[in-house]
């Protein structure tokens, strides 16, 4: 029951073998965007999801900030500084030791079975949140909520995301005010608890054309409901992003401490004002493949210009305690400089992009705000200095430090960086690249290729052409995105991962190809044969290879 691909256009022909003759035909030694020195933290969240579904708490990178702060405290001997450091370090570290290490025993195989049984026992298949089917069964008590939940507008949303507390308190809903969803969320929590009573985890429910996906972390329940093409696994990834966004606002330590103190705590208070980050993140996930691919899109830029930008940052932001310095332009990475030994994870970068994407307020003045990067260190905050570099507010400079006092120093760095980048015309170059809108698929001059996503695995970066016809309407873009979800799911299938997938759909032919070095998802016109597609893809790889200096950041720059 867990797998349900709902490939709307019935596959006419899907061959998904690692068939020998074709593998030989394919030139696997061409891996554009490959790089030996790590640019990003490239641990793949999808692997994580598969491996620690039950204990999803981020455990790898805790304490990084505390150790950086200690280092800083050692350096500066003035009493005042030490006090401040100690305060900060304490507040960050205090709960670290207490954090809950979930160890739920889940027998994964029996889960679906259990869910099914549980469902049948409760006869819950037909709650209001599952529209259209057997409207006769109603669990929800009559109240004004019922009207709302039954409204067509609410029911017809393509995707719902809910966050609720262990006690069933609503915290967030993508559509509609969570106040009106108390009962619905109560039912969801009842389902989750019911399965948990048997020392098991509820993972997904398929009801009609809707899939419900559940994820429990740190006293929070995340629920995703979709009738789109996302697989359970992909929905879990989206829920993980939502969880990371919660952590990013509160830190893992605070979250755990809060619920330890009051199991019934209303998390909406500390999260108030953060709704826009959740909303914006969900919107990003619907249009930005980088989140699905856990990889980063770089702004296409001559490598000489990019070098100037990163070298300017290295020279003029060489400040102690500065962990990451980056420039982002329209959701694309322009340059990244990092402290030696510390890496930025693409999931964290997406949260950073989301932060600046969701708020206009950074355009008005230099800003200074705490942000927790869960993959980097879920237990504490970094301080982010945020300021746009140009009048049009396109290129945004972010300097992330562990030192809360660093603002004025970083502000001076910004002034110097801006002055140099202006002098070298680098900001103009960035502006020009933004104006050119990446590149069109025609530039690759491969007939019948309509669109593609290419991810270089070793650098956790991806590239794709702009969306041209026929994908120039929101509906078509949505459909294309659905195709990518389908392809991505097939090649990453837990039970049967594929290396190569050739799929003929109603409107287009798809080719998915995963190797050690890359993931490629290509969309062709409908009449392309397998051989032609593979041939085209090889040509595409050579094209990307030629352009790789411009499309990817291939060398890692450190302070």
């Amino acid at each position, binding site marked *: 029951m867990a797998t349900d691909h709902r490939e709307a256009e019935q596959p006419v022909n899907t061959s998904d073998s690692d068939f020998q003759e074709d593998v030989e035909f394919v030139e696997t030694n061409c891996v554009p965007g490959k790089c030996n020195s790590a640019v990003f933290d490239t641990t793949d969240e999808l692997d994580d999801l598969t491996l620690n579904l039950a204990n999803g708490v981020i455990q790898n990178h805790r304490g990084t900030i505390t150790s950086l702060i200690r280092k800083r405290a050692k350096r500066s001997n003035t009493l005042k500084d030490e006090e401040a450091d100690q305060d900060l370090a304490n*507040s960050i570290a205090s709960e670290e030791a207490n954090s809950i290490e979930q160890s739920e025993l889940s027998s994964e195989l029996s889960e679906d079975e259990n869910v099914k049984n549980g469902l049948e026992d409760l006869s819950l298949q037909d709650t209001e949140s599952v529209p259209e089917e057997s409207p006769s069964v109603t669990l929800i008590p009559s109240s004004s909520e019922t009207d709302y939940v039954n409204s067509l507008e609410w029911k017809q949303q393509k995707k719902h995301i809910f966050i609720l507390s262990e006690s069933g308190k609503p915290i967030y809903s993508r559509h509609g005010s969570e106040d009106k969803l108390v009962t619905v969320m109560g039912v969801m929590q009842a389902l989750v608890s019911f399965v948990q009573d048997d020392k098991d985890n509820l993972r997904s429910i398929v009801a009609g054309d809707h899939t419900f996906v559940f994820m429990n972390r740190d006293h929070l329940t995340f629920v995703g409901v979709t009738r789109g093409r996302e697989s359970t696994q992909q929905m879990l990834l989206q829920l993980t992003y939502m969880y990371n966004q919660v952590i990013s*606002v*509160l830190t893992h330590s605070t979250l755990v401490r809060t619920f330890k103190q009051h199991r019934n705590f209303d998390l909406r*208070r*500390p*999260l*108030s*004002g*953060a709704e*826009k980050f959740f909303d914006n993140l969900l919107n990003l996930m619907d249009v930005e493949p980088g989140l699905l691919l856990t990889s980063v899109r770089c702004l296409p830029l001559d490598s000489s210009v990019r070098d100037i930008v990163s070298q300017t940052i290295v020279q003029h932001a060489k400040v102690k305690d500065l962990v990451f310095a980056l420039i982002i332009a329209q959701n694309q990475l322009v340059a990244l400089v990092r402290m030696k030994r510390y890496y930025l994870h693409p999931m964290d970068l997406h949260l950073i992009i989301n*932060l600046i994407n969701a*708020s*206009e*307020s*950074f*355009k*008005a*003045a*230099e*800003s*200074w*705000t*705490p942000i927790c990067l869960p993959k980097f260190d879920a237990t504490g905050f970094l301080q*982010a200095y*945020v*300021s*746009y570099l*140009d*009048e049009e*507010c396109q290129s945004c400079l972010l300097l992330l430090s562990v030192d*809360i*006092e660093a*603002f*004025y120093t970083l*502000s*001076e760095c*910004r*002034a110097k960086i*801006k*002055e140099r980048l202006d002098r070298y015309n680098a900001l103009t170059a960035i502006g020009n690249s933004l104006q050119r809108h990446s590149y069109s698929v025609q530039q690759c001059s491969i007939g019948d290729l309509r669109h593609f996503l290419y991810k270089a695995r070793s650098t956790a970066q991806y590239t794709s052409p702009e969306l041209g016809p026929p994908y120039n309407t929101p509906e078509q873009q949505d459909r294309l995105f659905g195709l990518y979800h389908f392809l991505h799911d097939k090649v990453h299938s837990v039970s049967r991962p594929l290396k190569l997938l050739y799929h003929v759909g109603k409107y287009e032919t798809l080719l998915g190809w995963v190797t050690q070095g890359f993931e490629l998802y290509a969309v062709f016109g409908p009449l392309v044969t397998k051989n032609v597609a593979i041939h085209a893809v090889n040509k595409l790889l050579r094209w990307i290879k030629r352009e790789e200096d411009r499309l990817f950041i291939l060398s890692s720059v450190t302070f």
Partner: protein
Amino acid sequence: MSQTGKRKADLKVIILGDYAVGKTSLICRYIDGKFQKQDSTVGAAFFFKPWGPYNIAVWDTAGDERYSGLSHFYCRSAGAAILAFDLNSPKTFESLWARFGSILEAANEDCLKVVVGTKSDELDQSTRDVSAEEGRRLALELNPELDQAYVERCGAPYFETSALKNENVTEMFEYIFQRCLPLSAEQQRRFKGKVSTIDLLEESSEGGGRKKCC
């Protein structure tokens, strides 16, 4: 966009208050000379403003509760703190004590606290909840070091403002600056006399601010 150049501030002013009371609007009205839609502040925003021969730094903090932990940092060396509340919302007035009272303990002892009611353009005098007298009283309580004579001469550090209508905004800021960085008669003459030149450099508070607010 911020000005580049030297960043030695002679006075640090911080503005505190619940979310959406109009802190950012107030500051942008003074610095950019106009009122426009503001997005809710994330963390804190830093503004810079010359005053005579001096440079003033203004920290505009976010009202959302989750940022409360950081307020003591902005307060630490503040010469003046603007405590903003929405004249139409008594809750935001109560917050000044409840939320920010303890935070202000981190400030300098001689930090001037100015209580500022916002959105006076929306206020209906006949139904108002927080009286001007209450506001004044809070302002005086918060500033025990202000002597009677000063208050009689310059007024209490309490203002009712409208960023929208541009009422009492400049007065409020000048009250702070005059108290914290008094210009001598000679300086006043010089800088007032230079106002027209400063205008040309577009550094005056009113009219054509040189930087847009977004």
